[in-house]
């Protein structure tokens, strides 16, 4: 991916860029809101990583300026503020995702991949989703694997829909928490893991191929490998 990082702290920016480079992503850098905005308007990026707290022009103003110019480049906001209302404010301003600082590279990459895919129109409006022999009927809100009907609780359905919309992508625990529960707090323990293992038990009966994989140190991935 070709990315633009707008972040005022030079040291953070350096490490993030080097980290992204290690993972194979090119990343430009703008130190102020104005630098970042002019870079975003003159070059083409797959996604923009935008710090909220910036000198001269703050992150939300940069975002609003971008959107008012008709730019639809996916934007991920980085912020030290991580409460629900901060997140809602960021999303309402036109960002595609919101990530609290400090973050891990895997989390950042997973979220960037998700918003870039969505922006490229891979996920079309559809009434059903399918991966391998697993099929999700969005209208009937039901799932089946082959001929076997899978009984899902509400949250399990929401988790599965999210996985299927992000098939093949790494999905982190916080992404799942936000998707299925709208949580801004970490419920701690291994709450998400427990839910995923229940969903997995329903998806993968004896003799069926594994679909829901654990990605060590990152999260999960729904994929027909």
């Amino acid at each position, binding site marked *: 991916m070709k990315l633009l990082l707008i972040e005022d*702290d030079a*040291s*953070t920016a350096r*490490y*993030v860029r*080097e*980290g992204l480079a*290690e993972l194979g992503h090119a990343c430009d850098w703008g130190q102020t809101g104005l630098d970042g905005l002019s870079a975003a308007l003159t070059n083409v990026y797959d996604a923009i990583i935008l710090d909220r*707290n910036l000198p001269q022009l703050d992150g939300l103003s940069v975002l609003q300026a971008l959107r008012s110019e008709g730019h639809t480049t996916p934007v991920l906001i980085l912020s*030290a*503020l*991580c*409460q*629900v*209302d901060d997140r*809602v404010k960021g*999303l309402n301003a036109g*960002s*595609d*995702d*919101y990530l609290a*600082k*400090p*973050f*891990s*590279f895997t989390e950042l990459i997973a*979220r960037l991949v998700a*918003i870039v895919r*969505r922006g490229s129109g891979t*996920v079309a409006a559809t009434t059903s989703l399918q991966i391998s022999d697993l099929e999700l009927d969005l209208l009937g*809100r039901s799932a089946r694997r082959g001929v076997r009907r899978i009984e*899902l*609780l*509400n*949250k399990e*359905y*929401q*988790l599965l*829909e*999210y996985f299927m*919309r*992000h098939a093949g992508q790494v999905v982190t625990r916080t*992404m799942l928490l*936000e*998707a*299925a*529960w*709208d*949580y*801004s*707090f*970490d*419920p*701690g*323990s*291994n*709450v998400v893991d*427990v*839910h995923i293992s*229940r969903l997995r038990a329903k998806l993968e009966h004896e003799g069926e191929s594994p679909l829901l994989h654990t990605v060590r140190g990152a999260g999960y991935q729904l994929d027909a490998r």
Partner: protein
Amino acid sequence: MTPVEPKSRRRPQAAAFRGALWITLIAVATTVAALTVQHFETARVLRVELDYLLEGEADALVRRYREGGRAALATYMNSEGFPGPPDVVYMLADGSGRRLAGDVTTWPAALSRGHVVPGSVEVRQGGRTQTRRIEGEVRTLGPDARLLVGHLADSRIALGRRYWLSIAVSVLVTAVLGLGLGWLVSRRGVRVVHAAADTGDRFLGGHLDERLTISNRDDEFDRLAEVVNACFDEIERMVRSLRAATDGLAHDLKTPLTRIKARLELAMLRGQDGPENVLLAETARDLEALLDLINGLLALARADATTADSFVALDLAWVAQEAYDLYAPLAEDAGQHLELSLTPAPTRGVSSLLLHAAANLIDNAIKHAPAGATVALGTGTRNGVACLTVADTGAGIAAEVHALALQRFSRLDESRSTPGSGLGLSLVATVARVHRGQFVLADNVPGLRAELRLPLRSEQEASGHRTLPLGAAPSSGGAAAPAWRRFGPDHV
């Protein structure tokens, strides 16, 4: 902060009427006292005049008796030219009380002797005989003659009656005027108090720019308003600086932490699976623990600065259901029974904070109760409050350390071997406080019973908002960033 329930509104003018009543009572007492003094003083003056009059009349007749004897006096008193002053009656009688002259027909037994004595006598006036009350002067002129000079007491009796009538009329007029005018006058004071209470309610409701209006009268009310406004200023300043400090702190703490984390991750990426990576991974884990702590503190500080303007109508039953859905599998894995018993508990609040509080309570119960224990999650209304209760059958907390358990960083586990930051229950207590509710720990015999009690939402409000959560879309799971929605009952 939520507005104070205006209980006083049940008797909207109680204070005004109380003020008016006192004013009236004082006025009535003053009027009665003034009238009484005036009456008795008038009566005394009249009596002195009467005494003087009767004494003068009697002295004149006695002189005539001394000069001419009984017969001459009788003749004089029977003559046509002896009407005397009006309202004065006379009688000249012999030693046995037989009438010799005058308009009193029979000698009154009660008036045998003495100065001015009241009594009834038979009086013949204008050819008619009638019984009249008199006050009279009796003179014994000699063994065969005595004299009665009396004054008809009707006017004095009427004066007494008039006294009671005037007292009654005055009290009535004073009461009506006093209550009416007093109410009007007290109402200004009460109006000022009501306006201040309403302003205070709006202030507590999150409108931190609300202030009392100060008139140009420069009276006690204005002084009170100035002092209250100064308090509001101070509270507003503190709330705003708390928010700003929290946001600033979040930024200042997280900038170096973001660097550290990025550096650690970069080092791990470059180190591949080298031996240093174990050290790096351990450092990263410690960093995560530090972050949890900081996030916990920031969440607490943010919760502390919550005002009622961010409240929405919600039901604790939905909050409990959400928390139950999240934790039920976890409890089951821990070999515990998570029971759910929900009845509507409508209130107003910040759903994310309440959910965080409920999650902390359940998480706490699951962590501290052993396998096989029951964790009961319930909601409902009791004694005018909406309750969310989490009761476990674990080891519980001794009653004497309940208060300690709610303090920040308090860990009742001395060894600090169980996971957690010691902020969980203090967040619940803070959430309860900013919602103007209570957080109560009690013995579940055995185990701990933790209850969040919030002000009950009124019926009108409840019906007005009922459609909101039920109408909410069940899911928007496809979006990476789902639309913000209120918590409501989920249906698949």
